């Protein structure tokens, strides 16, 4: 009698434990103060950039030359309430421009990482699961792609085609997928040898069925937690491209192009270069705090298993 109850209880526990691994990672991260600080700063910036430009009547692109070079509040003698962070060389509001820049930066960063995640993990899982020729071909392409620095690829493509948000996302994704392919592949290879996969094979499940329904839910979440860090990395790349003049084109503000334009006024109007940089750095710090907390908690749980 006792033997049957044990067997009956076993399958019930298994699915709840798989779900709870991810939940435990999130919970573990939430306990860290750095995660909460990062999350609150990030949500604050997100709300600010979503709401303020919609409510305010100030335009981010309209030039008002008489208001040019206004310093931020309480600095210098010409500051004005309607431009809390000052204005740039053409009288455009710095706060508004930074917030619009932040919107684009976040958009590019998040969409790119999603795309990288899908392409990289897809190819990696496929290579690791299929093995043999597929594995060799996909992994050698990955190696070649890794050995071309992303920035050379990006400026080669963006240098000629007019940079728009979709092309920037595609170029960044093109250069970011190989690392994910590697990680997903090694996880898939490890997973392939496990008992449950062999069991499913015996039951007659096809490759795709095993891969998508059973292996992917085990392999992908740990990678996804660390992908948060790459949002920040992609935002930096977007800014670098903008700085080289290959990002989102003016008059639409982006962090990179704002900082590049402001170099000429560095000595007289330091805030034009500094403020977008601070916005970007704060946004990146918040994302990195969240990401590294997730990573730490993940490592702790996987190390403890």
């Amino acid at each position, binding site marked *: 009698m006792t033997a049957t109850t044990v067997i009956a209880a076993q399958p019930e526990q298994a699915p709840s434990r798989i779900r709870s691994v991810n939940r435990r990672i999130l919970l573990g991260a939430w306990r860290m103060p750095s995660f909460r600080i990062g999350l609150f700063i990030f949500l604050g910036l997100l709300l600010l950039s979503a709401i303020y430009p919609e409510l305010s009547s100030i335009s981010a692109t309209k030039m008002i030359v008489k208001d040019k070079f206004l310093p931020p509040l309480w600095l210098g003698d010409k500051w004005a309430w309607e431009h809390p962070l000052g204005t740039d060389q053409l009288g455009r509001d710095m706060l508004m421009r930074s917030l619009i820049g932040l919107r684009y930066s976040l958009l590019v960063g998040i969409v790119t990482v999603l795309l990288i995640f899908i392409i990289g993990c897809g190819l990696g899982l496929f290579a690791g699961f299929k093995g043999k020729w597929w594995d060799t071909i996909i992994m*050698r392409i990955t190696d070649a792609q*890794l050995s*071309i620095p992303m920035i*050379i690829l990006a400026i080669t493509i963006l*240098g000629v*085609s007019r940079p728009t948000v979709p092309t920037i996302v595609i170029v960044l994704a093109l250069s970011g997928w190989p690392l994910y392919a590697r990680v997903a592949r090694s996880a898939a290879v490890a997973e392939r040898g496990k008992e449950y996969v062999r069991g499913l094979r015996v039951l007659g499940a096809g490759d795709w069925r095993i891969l998508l329904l059973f292996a992917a839910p085990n392999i992908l979440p740990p990678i996804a937690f660390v992908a948060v860090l790459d949002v*920040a990395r992609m935002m930096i790349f977007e*800014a670098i491209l903008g700085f080289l003049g290959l990002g989102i084109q003016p008059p639409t503000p982006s962090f990179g192009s704002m900082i590049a334009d402001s170099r000429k006024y560095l*000595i007289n109007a330091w805030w034009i270069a500094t403020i977008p940089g601070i916005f970007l750095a704060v946004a990146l710090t918040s994302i990195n705090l969240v990401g*590294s907390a997730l990573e730490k908690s993940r490592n702790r749980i996987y190390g403890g298993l």
Partner: protein
Amino acid sequence: MLILEFLVKRIAQGLLIVFITSLLIFTLLRVVPGDPVRLIVGGMAPPDVVEKVANKMGLRDPIIVQYGRYMRGLLQADLGQSYLRPRSGMIATGGQYVDPTKSDMAPVTDLILERLPFTLQLGGMALLFALLISFPIGVAGGLHQHGWQNALAFAVQSLFVSIPNFWLAIVLILFLSVKLKLLPALGYQGFSYVLLPAIVLSVEIAPFIIRTLTTSLGEVMQSTFIDEARVRGLSRRRIVYSHALRNAAVPLVNLLGIQLSTLIGGVLVIEYIFDYPGLGNLTVVSVVGRDFPVIQGIAITTSAVFVFINIIVDLVAYMIDPRVEL
């Protein structure tokens, strides 16, 4: 014998990677819109002149044929000649017509060899600074996993990784170079011109080193052989420096191989900002000018460097810890 076998295998793989890279960049350059001939002959030249020059340069042949020709040159260590840079060093701009088929254009090999030492110098200095910054922080953070040292390492790493390199470069130029006049910033007229770009680059690399060092040292310190060393009565200094660090160094060495492409990307932007006469600066100028042979040459050089350093990294990892599989 094992090492020899490993070298042969890795060099063969490396050649394959360099080959794929060159094919990728070669095709990409010719598929993406943007005709170098238009830039060479100038915007005012009639279309038939453009076609004539393009045919003469072989740019209208099928890509495979062009690639075959390029490969034949490459086997003789000839990367071709720049489209834009004459031997004298002046840059030909659009409008002034310089016949690129003539032999007075600078060979790509010379252009690259001229600049490679500058870039290696910058990369080496940056790596040195990064190690100087991150070693004390990382080792302290790894040894005291629950103390303030670990929190400090975490904070420094989160902050450094969040600072965009080009922005830091501008701010440092403003403060250290313009306001305080401590370090020179633009161009290159001596060793001191390396320092500021190297500092900026080291801030970009340091967080990765700190992170790897704290986690791997933390793991090593928990292993049984460390406890055993304590039982054997070794001093703490001896345990940390000759037992723990040696084992923690393997992930660190591997990290260098992985982060190399980040480093190269960083070098490119930093050289452009500081107008430093290295390969990165040459890349930006060549891409803008559609100087195909130079771009291809640089891509091949970087991928070769990449392959070479990764082989070295694996060898060094093996030397440090013979348990590592080659």
